[in-house]
């Protein structure tokens, strides 16, 4: 008879013998496996790269803080460029003119004269 493929029965017999193989782990193997069982540390994820602008923004306290800062800066510039009458004396001081300011100016407090004139 010409030898061709193994028939199914033979192959199934070999498979069955393979399935019956049930080795018992040696003490040495168990020891090697347990030696590797040190509690692992989670690998820290690298922090995402941040742009310089983002880092500056973080330094200043984020968008909320920066928006307040911008508002205050604009107000300061505006006051410098076109000072209202009430602060004109201060700007003059800043630029060299000496003036006296009376905080309790009677003119300011009693300007209307309502309290006295009834």
């Amino acid at each position, binding site marked *: *008879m010409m*030898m*061709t*493929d*193994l*028939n*199914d029965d*033979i*192959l199934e*017999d*070999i*498979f069955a*013998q*393979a*399935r*019956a*193989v*049930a*080795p*018992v*782990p*040696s*003490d040495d*193997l*168990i020891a*090697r*496996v*347990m030696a*590797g*069982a*040190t*509690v*692992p*540390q*989670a*690998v820290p994820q690298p922090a995402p790269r941040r742009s310089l602008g983002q880092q500056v923004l973080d330094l200043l306290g984020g968008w909320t803080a920066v928006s307040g800062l911008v508002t205050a800066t604009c107000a300061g510039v505006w006051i410098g460029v076109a000072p209202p009458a009430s602060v004109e004396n201060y700007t003059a001081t800043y630029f060299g003119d000496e003036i006296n300011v009376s905080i309790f100016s009677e003119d300011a407090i009693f300007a209307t004269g309502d309290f006295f004139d009834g």
Partner: protein
Amino acid sequence: MNAMPDLFAGAPDEALLIAFANGDAQAAQALTERLLPRVLAQATRMLAIQAEAEEVAQEAMIRLWKQAPDWRQGEAQVSTWLYRVVSNLCTDILRKRRGGVSLDQIAEPTDGAPSVVQKMQTNARMQALSDALAALPERQAQAVSLRHLEGLSNPEIAEIMDTNVRSVESLTARGKRALAAIMAGRKAELGYDDD
């Protein structure tokens, strides 16, 4: 192996793995008791060489320990993950082997107490099977071993091999045919006389 008290009886493998990741060394011992025999058996059936099978079993378990902190709960079963790792490690070795193997390296069968002649014949058959698996395309070798040596269902194999059931059916059918053709030449040598 000294049996652990039943501290973890009934707990799923995944729970033990997470306990280990959280620093519970006893969970690792319980997992080793549970999983190492099956891992070693799978490797032995594919490789037929005890030293190689032990090497694979050790490597697979070490990889499990390393995977523990990053284990994604509910995504895969620990057993499925191990089947995949062992299967891949074994096909790596089979690919490199593809040469002769000395008989004294062949694993001793541990079932029952067969006679010396029977033992030698079983060893020769297991070695022939392993050599034939080495000659198959790797995916076929994995599918055949998971189906016929581990006795897993096609859906289980599909999950392990990250494919679909139809592919598994095709791989196992082609693999089994190829295996039969490869081993046919050793029929008499393996104790199966022509009739």
